[in-house]
């Protein structure tokens, strides 16, 4: 599957358009964005975590996924390497760290190196990644923080609460993956 070195189809050149006359920053798709420091975003994310509503952060992730999928056509029919490479490039472009993907059997484990310190449990980044993969897969996807820092398990939203419990109990990624299986009817 990973025989060839993936070539990302995402071109970061000219992705941001700074309109100084208008005083606006727009991305390639024309959507307006704000340039904020992590110190400003961190308390906002922490507040959203305490309130239990990370919809705004998830919405940001969907926007990033949409930006990555523009160069891929139909991401579900594209090679996984190309899709994941584009997602990693877009995430890096917005300053959310560098994304890596691992396969543990049928499970996918995302690693984000250099992620911003927004909240203690990295629930803000988890919501961002969930929105990103949901936009690419065109279906709802949840990312659950694991016990290891910067590690997230990509799961169906229906099992996200159970996986989160296992992770809060201190179980690492191999232990959680061993608790999961593909049902026969699936």
């Amino acid at each position, binding site marked *: 599957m990973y025989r060839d070195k993936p070539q990302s189809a995402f071109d970061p050149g000219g992705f941001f358009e700074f309109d100084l006359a208008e005083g606006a920053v727009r991305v390639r798709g024309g959507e307006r964005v704000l340039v904020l420091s992590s110190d400003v975003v961190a308390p906002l994310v922490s507040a959203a975590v305490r309130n239990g509503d990370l919809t705004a952060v998830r919405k940001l992730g969907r926007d990033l996924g949409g930006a990555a999928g523009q160069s891929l056509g139909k991401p*579900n029919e594209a090679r996984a390497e*190309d899709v994941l490479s584009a997602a990693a490039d877009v995430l890096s472009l917005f300053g959310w760290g560098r994304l890596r993907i691992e396969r543990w059997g*049928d499970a996918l484990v995302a690693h984000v190196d250099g992620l911003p310190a927004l909240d203690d449990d990295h629930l803000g980044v988890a919501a961002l990644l969930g929105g990103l993969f949901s936009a690419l*897969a065109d279906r709802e996807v949840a990312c659950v923080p694991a016990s290891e820092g910067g590690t997230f398990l990509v*799961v169906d939203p229906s099992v996200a609460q159970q996986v989160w419990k296992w992770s809060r109990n201190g179980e690492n990624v191999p232990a959680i993956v061993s608790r999961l*299986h*593909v049902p026969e009817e699936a």
Partner: protein
Amino acid sequence: MSAGRVAKLEALLQRIQHNRAASPAPQARSTNPFGVARPAQEDLVRARAKLAPVARPEADDFESNTYVGVGPMAAQLLAAGAQKPVAPTPTISRPDSGELEIEHTYRGPGPSFLRTPSSPLARDGDSGELESEKTYLGVGPQGAEPEAEISISEPSADDVEITFDDEGDEVSIEAEAATSSMEAEAFAAEEAFDAEEHEETYEAEEPEAPTAPVDLRAPAPEPEEEEEAPAPLQARPIPLASAPASGPVARAVSKPRRTEPATFGELLHRTLALRPR
């Protein structure tokens, strides 16, 4: 001092005086035959060396084995009253009886060795009384064994002991003689059998006559023809026909079951299908 010894001394003094008169003292020379001056001390040393006493045997005093110095210096010393040096007289002890006693102990390999007439041991008169004939350690009918040890020891000039010993059993002389005769008869019988049964006749084959005259001379070498220098080796390619490219040479008749997801949608579908056990 006896009168004979005094007479010898007087005769010796006379000869010394005679020798001294015949050989005058050397004259010191200051030059050598090449005209090169040499020190007088060297001539003096040479003169003293010539005057040194030389020991020579006295002919009439040979029996006493006494050697007396007869040089001029000794004569002077004797004239001055010095005592004549006397060399130590060597002594040779001889047996008083003059008969050589030899004790022999024989442990010979067999009676033939002891009965050799020319052997001095047999002519000693004791051969008839040798106990070896009765007590020697026999070595079997075939003679001495290879591992038998023979040692001859001479503890002194007069005593000679010859010891022959081995680890075999003692065999009497009569038994050995009987066994030897039996073996000789058996050997003679075997030789006769071989001569009768396996007699072979060898006849010299006549050499075949040569069918062609043999020329001992080597044939004259034929004149060699001048050969042209060989051409240097060059690579000659072998033309190979190649099949025209007409399409795929293999056709897949079955495809293996795909186990790895090929697209991002398939990969994510398997991941989202995971459920708790």
